[in-house]
């Protein structure tokens, strides 16, 4: 099934923000499965909106989006069984005294039915996932007391510990230091290689994951480009999205993009 059904199948999609502005319009594309894909574009280009729509969290105003053949509106339950989701970091409420282990175990327990008890197997998998982002020593630490980069690593570990063939990560590298970035990128790359999973990653900066991703979707409220990383790193395409100040730099056989853009999108 995985060989034939596309990971994402989008037909003439249009989505509005809650304030009524058009976030996405005339979006149509298809991504094969499995894939490590990146959705890139500047702030406000509709990247997060696209993934949230695919999970059935937002209702499209026109068109359809299918994940592994399941319609995002009619079959969202089926999609959510497959998906492990890492929301933008500031979506996690820090007023609740959660420990690092509680957050990582969430990934496992959310896929169970109440009363959602953690078995010793769950705990072993959660510890292993933390180890992959080099955080296993902080198992008992209060989550709200961690630095931004550490919190992000814990959230990635939550996704690694969970079950389902699709990992969806919304800006997992935003506001993290180089060490955290490298750890997250390496862990995701390794996980994709060793397991039969797809990874969909929203990011404003393609460079850290450039050598790992297979498909890149360049978005500015509609599809500007779709292809391999180096073909997307086309000066004309990039300027169209990021403005005339964007530059492409070639280094050891790969093209990298330099923009002034950084930070997290916020649309509440």
């Amino acid at each position, binding site marked *: 099934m995985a060989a034939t059904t596309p990971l994402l199948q989008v037909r003439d999609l249009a989505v509005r923000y809650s304030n009524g502005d058009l976030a996405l319009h005339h979006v149509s594309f298809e991504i094969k499965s499995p894939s490590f894909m990146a959705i890139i574009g500047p702030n406000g280009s509709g990247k997060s909106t696209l993934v949230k729509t695919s999970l059935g969290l937002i209702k499209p105003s026109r068109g359809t989006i299918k994940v592994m053949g399941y319609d995002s509106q009619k079959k969202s339950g089926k999609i959510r069984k497959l998906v492990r989701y890492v929301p933008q970091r500031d979506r996690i*409420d820090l007023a609740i005294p959660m420990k690092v282990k509680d957050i990582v175990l969430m990934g496992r327990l959310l896929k169970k039915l109440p009363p959602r008890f953690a078995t010793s197997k769950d705990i072993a998998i959660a510890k292993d996932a933390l180890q992959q982002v080099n955080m296993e020593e902080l198992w008992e630490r209060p989550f709200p007391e961690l630095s931004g980069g550490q919190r992000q690593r814990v959230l990635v570990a939550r996704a690694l510990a969970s079950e389902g063939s699709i990992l969806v990560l919304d800006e997992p590298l935003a506001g993290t230091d180089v060490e955290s970035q490298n750890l997250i990128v390496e862990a995701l790359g390794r996980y994709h290689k060793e397991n039969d999973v797809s990874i969909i990653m929203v990011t404003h900066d393609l460079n850290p994951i450039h050598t790992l991703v297979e498909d890149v979707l360049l978005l500015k409220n509609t599809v500007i480009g779709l292809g391999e990383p180096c073909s997307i790193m086309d000066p004309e395409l990039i300027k169209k999205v990021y403005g005339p100040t964007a530059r492409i730099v070639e280094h050891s056989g790969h093209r990298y993009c330099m923009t002034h853009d950084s930070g997290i999108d916020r649309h509440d």
Partner: protein
Amino acid sequence: MIDIIQIIIESPFLQRAILGALLIAIVAAASGTFLVFRGLSFMASGVAHAALGGTALGIFLQDSGLVPWFDPILGALLFSVLVAAFTGYAGESGITQKMEVAVGVSFALSMSFAVFLMYYIPPYRVPQIWGYLIGDILLLNDLDIIMLGSTTLLLAVITLMFNKEFVYVSVDMEGSTAHGMNARAYHYLMLIVSALAIALATKAVGAILVYAIMVAPAAASNELVKSVRGVIFSVFLIALIAELAGIATSFVVFVSPSAIAGILAALSYILALQIKRLKEKVDVDIDDPALYPDDLKVTWIQSLSHEHEDEHEH
């Protein structure tokens, strides 16, 4: 000690008061904790006042003969559930500020509704509306205990079963939904069951005690305790000690037990803030140089000297 036990055995009202204190402490632990987690501490007073509007409606329907069987307490419960549902609807996206606004609006709406109906209710029954807010833990009757007890039991069972879900909804509503949990259902369940318990607790022991016990111990515990289970347990202890101390004091001094319990609960929060401040101060002392880079210090000194110059001019 034996004297105290003797007194308790001989006075049923005291037994009911102690049982009531225990039940209210359970309500605070099960419901107050999660309301404070969600930043909804205002909901306790919002629901209690909304219930006032419901009581007015109940009295009006009874008195006008429209629906003679409609007990005012049914109105109170109905309104508190409506407030919870409205609050839940406003906060479906998981944004706390929107829920606080919804609580505020429904507070105002149901109070206005109560005042509106007061003109159509015979004057001798109006005190009954306000009486809804004034309960006394020493005046509990058997019916109060039965109603409060059954709601507390319901709340306790639901919280025991779904505490993880309530935590997940509070921590990461979007992520929980995306992983396949029916976050919306738990979001509403938590608010509605809390509202029912708050409404009945208010009727039984009075508004002041409910506000104080629902919010302050949970806020205090959340400042200091570092695990969800620890907070729930600590809320129960603080609430129970405050209430029992209130009841005990009322035997020695002529004073309302609710007032003493309320003051003690509020003090627990102030104390927790102070302890946390002291702890933070110790931490800051350790990293002192890192927190005050040189350029910051210079600006600070400059601004100080400017202030002095201003003083000379005057």
